[in-house]
Every structure is written in structure tokens, then in C-alpha cells.
């Protein structure tokens, strides 16, 4: 007799994707079990010790706006924070924090433990159980079955993993954790093929053995801005820990070149595809041979440890080469390695097999998120975890699925890219991937996405009312500033001159004045006696909306065109064999990807405008046959 336990959702893996998925489901009222190989590795950060950064900071803000946990958790456990790109436009400002790794993991575990409806279970899931192409449960290594309505796979880099250091290969997950072995066969058995990706991490060193006087100190911002909309800014003004900057040199590069044949990548031992944006130091030296030095950041792993992370020098060289190469870097001459750098290979799925909800097309109720989908990075994983959790819940609860558009969120871009495009390496978020980034700023994630969090039930009435009020205040203030005329009276001219601004030739609105580069909302206050007292989060938006109005308008026009195509849905049951005069290549691509909208179809490589026309005509035919307009 099979021993079984009934639940509603099973989340496989408790990394950054898994915890967001499990929290979303349990918070939406579903009985949820989260499985982890080891409860001490919940929300572990096996690679770099930072959260956020260019475009990843946007993802954290978006996760927070919809009721995810990452932003709140890093606000509790960061040890340094910096807003990047502040000299640039508001669209590319990006928050980046150094985390206390152990504290981050501990704090997240506490959140899980205190969450109603959520059970943590240390176990290796070995099998996905299905009936009629529908998930019915999962089996763990002991044979126990957890019956469920949906399962979310978030195995990260653990599945069938192996770590490589020179000639040495160990069959473990990241950081020496036990890997998961059995799920692979089960997935292949239910028609989910896997592929192999690779990534790497640099060495950790004993901080006491480093000479910081030879490096440049990198401190955090004086005034820290929290990630989460629900964190009180007063709570994050803490004493911060610095990072340090140093550089590789020709001596470093020579050692690498001399030993390049001992690198498992260059020796051909590694089969997986690695990410180009996160190259190992070997890759950097080989591919950018003209560069005489590369940056190296020394980042603390936490307050409670001496361990430091050597950012910029990930490697899979043998131990002895690592030791020699690190010691050529100024400040690292006497370094002692605690954990060596290594490359890791793992099984993951081609996300082209998924719907935009992150559910597999093959198996009803089976969702996938995080690094398992071929992404990389904690933030990318968390974002997918949240969306998979929401959509699994919506499916069980009978709600509308939540699919964010490319024009609405970085998360929308992330998932659309993963599902639609042909990704041959781990996918990292970048600002350049977002076409409409001027609209998708980190400062307006709440205005963009709170409504969705509220709709699905992760954002409270109170939080939602707050953002609605904020939106109204912004609109009214922009309108007011556009309506107030400033005449060319002498006292006005003097006011402007005093602020280094040219005289007015004719009267203009306050809004127009604010657009002068040397002026701002703040500095025209003296011309605006009736100005209402508004919170900073409102005036900040007012300023951005007015200053960049022309550019914002241009992007909005692009979005309108884009959305017209996105809104033309393609029915799930379309049979592409019925669509006459499609070219063969297009027909195959469409069959394989099964795009959900005309917009998505148009982004598939190999589908031409003519094919899209043919498809549109076919859709019209279906529509008129159904007797609709």
C-alpha cells in the first residue's frame, strides 16, 4: 500500500524561485509543500553575494510590487547598498546591494516557517506522477507520494549536476551540496526533454590574508533607499561594509595562457553551454586578449564570516593554477583560498516548451521556474518563481492567468524571451533587452504592477489604495504645473537669473520651465506659491513625467503599435495544418512554439510578415465561422 499525503501544490526546490513560488501559492490559500535537498540551504546564494544591479534591481522592485518576498528579505539582511547609474536617466537607475548570505538564507527560512498553509520538507523528489497528461503528485526518495493539483519545478543547478576544477570532477550540486539525480529520468519519461547548461563561480578567500591597502575602497550610498515598498526607509540606514577594487595584470594573464589546456572548458571536458555575460577569467583573457587588465571586486560574504568573494575571476582551472593566478593580483599576494573556484554543469529545460504562464504545454499542472528554465541569477529566478506560483494558483482557483507584457515589466520581457526565443546559454536580464525601458523604471514598479498583485490577491486593499492615491496625486500635480503660467515680469526674471537660467521671452508654464536642464521641481518652488505639500514619492514621479515627456510619449506610441499585435490572441486549439499557404518553415516554427498571440508569433525567427498575414486571414475565417463579427 502506497503511503501518501494530500496537498495542493508541490514546489520542488527551495532556492530563490522555489521560495517565491511556495510563498505565492500558500499566501493565496493553497496547501503547499516545498521540498529541499537540505533545509539549511533554503534561499542559499551559491554564487555572488549581491542582489540587484543593472536591470536585476528592476526585477526585485517588480517582484515586490506584486507581493513577492525578495525585496523585503534583502532589506532585512543587506550590508551595503548603492544606486547605480545615478548620473544617467531615471530608466537605468538601479539598486544593488551586498547581502549577508547566511542572514539572507536564515531570514527567508523564518518567513517560510511562519507562513500559513506552507510545509517545508527535506527530501529529494524523484518522480512526477501524472494521469492523462495531468500532474497528480510527486514521489520522494523514500517512496512517499505527495498528491497535488500542481507541481512547480525549481531545481536550479542541482539536477544531475557535476562540478569541475581542472581534471577533478565531483558529482555534487553547488557548494558541495548533494545533487538530485532521479528526477531527470522521470521528466524524460513524461516527455520533457532536458539539456545541459554550465556556469561558474570564483574562489572564496580568507579575508584576513588580503592586503586592502593595495586596493580601492568601494563604499555604499550615504542615504540608502530600500528595495521594498513596504520597508520603512528609516530602517535601512545602517552601518555598511565596504567592498574593494583591484585588477588583474599581464602576469595573471600569462599564467592563464600557459595553462589554458588544463582548463576543462578548453580541454573539451565541459559539454554544457556557458553564459557569455558572466565569463570565466580564462574566457576574458582568451576572447579579449587586447585588454591588459580586468577588474576584480572583493566582496564580503557576510558580517559573521571572514570569507570574501573574488568577483570577476570565476574559473575552472586546477587548484595550483588558481592559487598562482590569484596571487598575481595586487592585494592578493598572500591570499589563502577557503573554497576554490569551479564550473558547474546541470540539466535544465528548454523554456520553449512552456506557455507564457510557465506551465509546460506537455503536462497539465506542471510548472517550471528559475535556473531550471535556462535563466541565471537570483533575481531572474525569483521573478519566475513568483509568476509560476501565481499562475499555478490561478489555475487551481479558477482565476485568470497573469501574463505580463514586454511593455509592462522586465518580468514580461524575461519570460517572453525565455519562452519565445532561441536561447543557447543561461539567460541574464539586461536593460538592453527591454525595448520600452523608459516606461519600465525601477521607480514606478508599484504604479505599473501593484494592480496585478492586488487582482490575484497578494497585495492588500490598503496597499492598493495607497498606490491609487499616489497615481491620482501625480496626475493632478502634473496637470496643475502645466496650467500655471509664469509671466515675463521682472521679479520672475530675477528669480531665474539667480538660478543660472535664461530670461523668459514670453510667458510659459511651470512645467515648461522645469524642463530646463538647470531647473527642477524643487528650484521653481519660489514661483509656485500655491504648491501643495506632497510626499517625495509623488514629486519624484511628477518631475520625471514632466522632464521626459517627449521621450515618454515617443515610447508610448511604440507600445501602442506593439500592443495591437499582442492583443490578437491565437486560440490554443489552432491546427496549423489548416492554415493554407503558410511556408513550411513558418508552419514548423508555429507548431513547435504555439505562440499565444500574433505579436508573439511575429517574434519567432523564421516567421515572415507574409506568414503573419496568412495567419491573420485564417483567424478571421475562424471568427466569421463562429458567427462573431
Amino acid at each position: 500500500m502506497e503511503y501518501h499525503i494530500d496537498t495542493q501544490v508541490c514546489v520542488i526546490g527551495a532556492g530563490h524561485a522555489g521560495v517565491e513560488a511556495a510563498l505565492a501559492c500558500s499566501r493565496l490559500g493553497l496547501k503547499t509543500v516545498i521540498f529541499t535537498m537540505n533545509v539549511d540551504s533554503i534561499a542559499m546564494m551559491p554564487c555572488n553575494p549581491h542582489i540587484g544591479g543593472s536591470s536585476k534591481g528592476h526585477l526585485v522592485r517588480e517582484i515586490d510590487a506584486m507581493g513577492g518576498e525578495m525585496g523585503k528579505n534583502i532589506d532585512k539582511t543587506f550590508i551595503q547598498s548603492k544606486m547605480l547609474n545615478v548620473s544617467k536617466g531615471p530608466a537605468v537607475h538601479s539598486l544593488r546591494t551586498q547581502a549577508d548570505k547566511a542572514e539572507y538564507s536564515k531570514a527567508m527560512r523564518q518567513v517560510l516557517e511562519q507562513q500559513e498553509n506552507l510545509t517545508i520538507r527535506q527530501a529529494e523528489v524523484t518522480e512526477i506522477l501524472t494521469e492523462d497528461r495531468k500532474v497528480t503528485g510527486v514521489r520522494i526518495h523514500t517512496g512517499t507520494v505527495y498528491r497535488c493539483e500542481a507541481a512547480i519545478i525549481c531545481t536550479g543547478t542541482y539536477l544531475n549536476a557535476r562540478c569541475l576544477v581542472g581534471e577533478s570532477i565531483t558529482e555534487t550540486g553547488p557548494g558541495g551540496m548533494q545533487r538530485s539525480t532521479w528526477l531527470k529520468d522521470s521528466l524524460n519519461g513524461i516527455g520533457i526533454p532536458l539539456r545541459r547548461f554550465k556556469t561558474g563561480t570564483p574562489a572564496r578567500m580568507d579575508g584576513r590574508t588580503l592586503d586592502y591597502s593595495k586596493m580601492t575602497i568601494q563604499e555604499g550610498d550615504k542615504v540608502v533607499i530600500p528595495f521594498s515598498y513596504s520597508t520603512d526607509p528609516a530602517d535601512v540606514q545602517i552601518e555598511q561594509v565596504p567592498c574593494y577594487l583591484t585588477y588583474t595584470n599581464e602576469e595573471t594573464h600569462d599564467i592563464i595562457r600557459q595553462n589554458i589546456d588544463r582548463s576543462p572548458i578548453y580541454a573539451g571536458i565541459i559539454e554544457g553551454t556557458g553564459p557569455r555575460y558572466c565569463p570565466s577569467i580564462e574566457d576574458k583573457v582568451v576572447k579579449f586578449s587586447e585588454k591588459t587588465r580586468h577588474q576584480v571586486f572583493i566582496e564580503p560574504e557576510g558580517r559573521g564570516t571572514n570569507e570574501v568573494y573574488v568577483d570577476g575571476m570565476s574559473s575552472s582551472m586546477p587548484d595550483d593554477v588558481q592559487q598562482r593566478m590569484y596571487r598575481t593580483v595586487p592585494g592578493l599576494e598572500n591570499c589563502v583560498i577557503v573554497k576554490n573556484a569551479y564550473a558547474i554543469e546541470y540539466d535544465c529545460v528548454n523554456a520553449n516548451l512552456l506557455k507564457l504562464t510557465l506551465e509546460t504545454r506537455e503536462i497539465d499542472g506542471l510548472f517550471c521556474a528559475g535556473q531550471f528554465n535556462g535563466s541565471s541569477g537570483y533575481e531572474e529566478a525569483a521573478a519566475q518563481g513568483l509568476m509560476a506560483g501565481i499562475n499555478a494558483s490561478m489555475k487551481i482557483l479558477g482565476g485568470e492567468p497573469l501574463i505580463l507584457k514586454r511593455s509592462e515589466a522586465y518580468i514580461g520581457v524575461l519570460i517572453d524571451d525565455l519562452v519565445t526565443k532561441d536561447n543557447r546559454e543561461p539567460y541574464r536580464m539586461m536593460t538592453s533587452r527591454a525595448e520600452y525601458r523608459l516606461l519600465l523604471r525601477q521607480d514606478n514598479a508599484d504604479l505599473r504592477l501593484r494592480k496585478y498583485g492586488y487582482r490575484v490577491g497578494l497585495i492588500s486593499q490598503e496597499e492598493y489604495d495607497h498606490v491609487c492615491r499616489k497615481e491620482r496625486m501625480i496626475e493632478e500635480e502634473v496637470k496643475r504645473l502645466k496650467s500655471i503660467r509664469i509671466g515675463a515680469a521682472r521679479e520672475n526674471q530675477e528669480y531665474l537669473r539667480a538660478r543660472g537660467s535664461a530670461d523668459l521671452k514670453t510667458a510659459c508654464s511651470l512645467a515648461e520651465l522645469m524642463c530646463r536642464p538647470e531647473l527642477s521641481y524643487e528650484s521653481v518652488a519660489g514661483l509656485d506659491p500655491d504648491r501643495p505639500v506632497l510626499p517625495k514619492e509623488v514629486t519624484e514621479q511628477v518631475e520625471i513625467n514632466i522632464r521626459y515627456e517627449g521621450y515618454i510619449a515617443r515610447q508610448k506610441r511604440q507600445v501602442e503599435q506593439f500592443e495591437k499585435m499582442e492583443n490578437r490572441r491565437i486560440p490554443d486549439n489552432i491546427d496549423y495544418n489548416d492554415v493554407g499557404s503558410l511556408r513550411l518553415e513558418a508552419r514548423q516554427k508555429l507548431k513547435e512554439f504555439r505562440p499565444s498571440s500574433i505579436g508573439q508569433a511575429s517574434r519567432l525567427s523564421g516567421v515572415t510578415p507574409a506568414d503573419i498575414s496568412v495567419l491573420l486571414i485564417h483567424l478571421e475565417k475562424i471568427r466569421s465561422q463562429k458567427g462573431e463579427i
Partner: protein
Amino acid sequence: MALVFDHLHTDTIAAIATAMSEAGIGIIRISGPEAAAIGSRLYRTPNRQKTDISLWRPGTIRFGYIVETDRDGKEKLIDEVMLSFMKAPHSYTTEDTVEINTHGGMFLMNRTLELVLAAGARLAEPGEFTKRAFLGGRIDLARAEAVMDLISSENEFARKTSAAQMEGAVSSKIRELREKILYEIAFIESALDDPENYTLEGYTDKLMDTCISLEMEMNDLLSHAEEGRILKEGIRTAIIGRPNVGKSSLLNHLAGEERAIVTEIEGTTRDTLSETVRVGGVLLHLTDTAGIRETEDKVERIGVHRAEKALENADLILFLIDSSRELSQEDAQIAEKIIMRLQEGTKCILLVNKTDLSSEIKEEEVKSLFISRGCECPPLLFCSLQTGEGMKELGEYIAKLFHTGEIAEKNEIFLSNVRHKNAVREALESICLVKESIMNGMSEDFFSIDLMNAYRVLGTILGEAVEDDLVEEIFSKFCLGK
């Protein structure tokens, strides 16, 4: 990508609805809610009055003019046309439709189409009229699909031919422009994605230089488009000379048939005769003129007047001189008229004909017709239309004068296409917006909005998708990540 349905049903489209050819009448079709308004902007009645086409009785066709309005509101006549108006749903597309029947000739058709686009229409994609007809319920699916089949195959054909056409210098020029733009975008993006590794300090000056050079190069392309037009449209060529010098013989020789009546009686050609021929790889629109001379004959006088008109409109003048007779007062008068044209940039070739007969004039005498009037003498060629001597050289002279080898390679196919011209124009505008952003002290991330647009638009000329180029470029050129 997928321009076909970008503006599904909401905007007004236009295209040349007849086959593009030198001959006959060309129809420009405008379809959509703005069709009548756009037509009204360009159409003038026979007494040059404005009219609101939407108030016409649907289904009517009227004579009138297409005009171009300059910045000061002055109107310039472009072409005589017949214009018809059909009201929704009683048209092919089931939308409001205006059709402009032009006199044909690719130049005029393209010119008019450009005006229509400038007045607010979007260039229709292949098959778009038919698609609208189907969506409007005007034609059934079988027919629509048949048309779409044709379009797909035409598309494929067009793609192939355009691929072939684009092998030339022009496509590599566009590629070069795009590469430059992409490099700048990739640099900016790398710096934004990895601010700790790449700095943008001092970058704007460099970008400004790049923008200025891009602007110049694109302006160049656009101005060469006019030369390309001459080539594709043909060179308006006037054959001129005093009576019975052999003008009609030259026309006939080039046209290869007895087109004009050739006699030995002076003044046989009383009117201008036209012919289109290919000489030295160049299309010439030849106009044989009546000999220019003072005359009492009324009919002949009209001919002379027209000859003078032809002289004024010509891109190239072929000036014939009879070597068997001494230079006359008439030759000198013609030379004077030509000198005026030369100063306007018109090109000229002197043909000293009848070398088969005894020679009465020396080369110096002919040259002094110009030199004595302070003007450099145009290229001079001795020939005989009787024997055909010098005819081969004539082709070479013409090719040389119009740098045709160069132009043909550079522009012939390329920028004579309105869509391509529009694309370059839009890219140019975007680059100017970048310059504006730089001058307004905007930060670098704003530049990439317009740079990206320029890159995308130029890509439509080559038929290349934008999507992943940028990411590829970033990874190949910049060492990103930690």
C-alpha cells in the same frame, strides 16, 4: 517586423496600384479613413481651387492637378491627373478610397506617392489592399487566399531579387551605417549594464562626431537618390542645331527606325519628336527639335518655340554642327543659349556631323564659339550619321558625363525606391533627435531610444530583423560581467 498588420485597419495606406513601368497611366490608390482628407490636401481643381473630396458624389472621377506646397504655402504643380473617389463600403477595400490616375512615368508616380505619404498615409505592404478587402467582407476567403499565395511567392521573389540587388555597394553602405550605429548602442548599453566596468565619461563628444558623420552620409545617400532617379527615369536629352544639320538623322540612328522625316529641305521637322533609347547603358529621353532659326512660317515658329522649351528642360544637350558648311550666325546664337544652360549645370556634347563630306570648319573655330564667350568648350566629337562614325564614342561620352558606372552601382535600384528613401529619411530624423538630446544635455540612455530606431529603420531596407543583434554585439565587442 511584421509590418503587414502593424496598423490593422486604423490607418490609411497608399501605394502605386499599377505595375511600375515606363509606359502608360499609373494609379496611386489611397485607402482608409483619411483617404479623402489626404487627397484633398494634394488635389486642385482645373482652376487650381481646393476642394473637399469627401463631399463629392461617391463614384465620380474628376480632372485636376496634384500640387506640392512648400514651406511658404506656395503651390507647385506636379502633374495633371484624374482623381476618383469611392466611399466606404463601396470600394475594393470597403474603405474610403481615392485613386489618383497620373500620367505615368516612374518619376512622377513616385513623386506623387511621396506627397501622399507626406500628407499622412502609410505605404501599403504587399497584399494589404487585398487583405483589407477580405477583412471587409468584400472578397471570399478562397480568393483572398489565392491572392495571399501570390503575395507570398511575390514576396519570396521580391526578397530574392532584392537580395540580388542589394549585393551592390549600396547595401554594404547601409550595412556600414548600421554597424556604426549598433556599435554605439552596444557601447552605451554595456556601460549601463556594467557601470563598474565601462565609463561613459567624455563619450558624448565622440557620439556627436559619429552622429554628424552619419548625418552627412545619409544626406549624401538621399541626394544621390536624385542621380539614381535620372538613371532610372532616363536623361532628358534635347537634340539641337540649325536646320538640316542632321538632328532627325541622329534621332533615327539612335532609335533604329525611320521615326522623323528626313529630307534635305531645311525645316522639315516642324515639331518636336520624342523617343526613348538606351545609349551607353543609359536611358535617354530624346527630343528632336525643329532647327532653331528665325522664321516667318507660323507652324515652324511654334516648333522653334518648343525647341527652346526642350532646351530649358534638358539634362543633356546634343548640339549638332554641320562640318560641311561654314559656321553661321545661327550656330553662334544656339551656342549662346547653350552657354546659359551650361551655367545652370546642364550637360552638353558637341557633335560635328557629316565628316563623310568635305570639311569646311576647323575644330578651333567650333571651340571658339564657347571660348570667345568666356566659357569652357563642352566635349566635342566628330561623327558621321551617314557612316555611323563616332556613334560608339557618343555612348561613352554620355556615360562619362553622368558618372553612370558609379551611380548605377551605387543607387540605381536602391534609393529610387520610395520605401527605401523614406527609411533613410526616418533614420536621419532619428539621428538628428540624438544630436538634439546630446545638445540638451540628456543622459546617455536616452540616446539609445533614437539610435535604436535609426538602426531598426535601416534594417527594413535590408530586410533584417533587429531583435538579437544588439545582444550579440554587446557580447562580442565588450567584456561584460564579473
